[in-house]
């Protein structure tokens, strides 16, 4: 579990920054939320932003992947875990924003 958290810690900042940046260019494309920017952000955060972050992790972490392998963890499992964490994060963020919007 520690290594999964370590992975998330490494990838979260990159994904977050990329998603904010990308969302700033496409705020009106999706609007299931009352805040179009958040809609774009959450969609990008769980898809394109995450995929780009994985590529960055794969490129810069070529050598460190053996840390995961030596603990019996495949990269596929790590990526899937990250994907579901991102979904949960976006959902939590949505609930917080909705609550703030109502106030």
């Amino acid at each position, binding site marked *: 579990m520690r290594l999964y958290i370590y992975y998330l810690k490494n990838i979260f900042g990159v994904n977050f920054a990329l998603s904010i940046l990308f969302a700033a260019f496409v705020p009106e494309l999706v609007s299931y939320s009352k805040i179009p920017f958040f809609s774009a952000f959450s969609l990008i955060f769980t898809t394109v932003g995450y995929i780009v972050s994985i590529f960055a992790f794969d490129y810069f972490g070529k050598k460190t992947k053996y840390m995961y392998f030596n*603990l019996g963890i*495949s990269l596929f499992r790590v990526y899937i875990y990250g994907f579901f964490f991102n979904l949960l994060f976006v959902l939590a963020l949505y609930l917080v924003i909705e609550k703030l919007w109502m106030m």
Partner: protein
Amino acid sequence: MDDVKELYIDSVEFSYVNNRPILTGAYLKCRTGDIIGLLGRNGCGKSTLMRIIFGTLKAQHSYILLNGKKIEKPYLTSKIGYLPQHSFLPTHERVSYLIWLLVKSATLRQRLLDDNRIQTLKDKKVYQLSGGELRYLEICLLIYQPTDFVLLDEPFTGLEPVYVQYITDLIIHFKDEKGFVISDHNYRNVLDIATQTILLQNGGCRQIQDKKELEFFYVPDGTFDMD
């Protein structure tokens, strides 16, 4: 000794795309208590064989049994550790943090932290370590896992003699608990601790019985005359 674990690899065939075959039926059997010295010339496939055994490289054909059970990706069982030729630790992290991160068992972690050499390193960051210190740390992190087998790809390369000795001592200390497969070009260091010597040659594994045989197939004549 009814708790002996066994790693069995047979019929390993591998070639890179559009290239000559590297491995053509390689065979290896390692049990806990064994230290197998895997020798061979540059490019003969030692690292390739290790990566196939570990499961991070897919061979065209391979048959791997771990404790009698056929497995496709041995590393997913957490029973095999692998030290690649390059360092696998993130350079910006502190040694104590990496020990906490990678050694799950509190007992094993404490045993590792009690190691005299690790005590002097634990507050340093990885990029501050010398080549020998880094290699020693990496091997410790692998050995202090609940694995049955450890594959070490060139553990002694580029190290000063004192660290070669530390690593040798460490391997011998854990010999009864684990099986080791060690590949290195410093064949003397390997031969000093190996219980079996395997020469990887022409895509296959040849069991070497004595130094004379090794002279015949691998090292120049007269290499061991002074021993």
